[in-house]
């Protein structure tokens, strides 16, 4: 690893396009200003890694997960009596179902095909 010493307001260039400036040094904390092209994302490493890890885990989802989810949500919203002990989740799930129609409309607007009706996509 290349190690450089810089003082406040001094800058490092990475290639022609990326500039890193030391904005402030206070105790063991350094504030950096980063100027980079839009095509180069800049993230705090721990946040970047957390999202990367979460994506990798989420990629294991199965079709069964969705059908289980659908059934859970339907059952929880169809049985308000059972939710009396805990009203908040019940109302939350009702809202989820109420909005399903809106979502479908949004999906149509965005021209999104459904997994159930692929043949529909060539009728245009």
């Amino acid at each position: 690893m290349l190690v450089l010493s810089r003082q406040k307001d001094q800058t490092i260039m990475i290639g022609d396009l990326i500039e890193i400036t030391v904005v402030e040094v206070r105790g063991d904390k350094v504030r950096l200003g980063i100027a980079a092209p839009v095509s180069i994302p800049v993230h705090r490493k721990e946040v970047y890694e957390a999202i990367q890890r979460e994506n990798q885990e989420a990629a294991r989802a199965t079709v069964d997960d969705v059908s289980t989810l659908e059934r859970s949500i339907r059952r929880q919203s169809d049985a308000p009596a059972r939710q009396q002990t805990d009203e908040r989740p019940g109302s939350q799930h009702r809202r989820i179902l109420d909005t399903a129609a809106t979502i479908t409309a949004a999906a149509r607007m965005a021209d999104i095909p459904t997994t159930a009706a692929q043949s529909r996509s060539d009728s245009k």
Partner: protein
Amino acid sequence: MERMMKIETSRFGCLEIAADRVIQFPLGILGFPECQSWILLQSDPQSCFFWLQSVDDAELAFIVVQPQNFFPAYHVRAQAEEMKLIGLDSPEAGEVFAICNRVGNSITANLQGPLVFNAQTRQARQVVLCDRQYHTRHELCLVEPALAAGS
């Protein structure tokens, strides 16, 4: 005449999709930078769950939802420059989705790394929010163990 393309998927078999429905993630999705072409599928017309399926990798797909339906106050505060890459002025001008994950008996949504779509140009990117109130696992709902066992 629309050009159709065949997409192999491990979950849904072979899908025939109009080529203009493909969504481009110029930067990929974090952890999958090489996967830039995706399609958005609805699991069922009544469902609030969508699948984001990779065109490049048959086995790669995410369950996604529109987070505002579950978290009405959810707000994506992204920098204008981040949105420029996909041709939007702000996240509000696009469609926002969140990737879901199953953690034990709950389904969670990643609100820290939302996906922002430009529905006109069909370009999208995953945004990393600095907002500390959002993390990668917000609970959407619980999976009832009995139902899970029956599937």
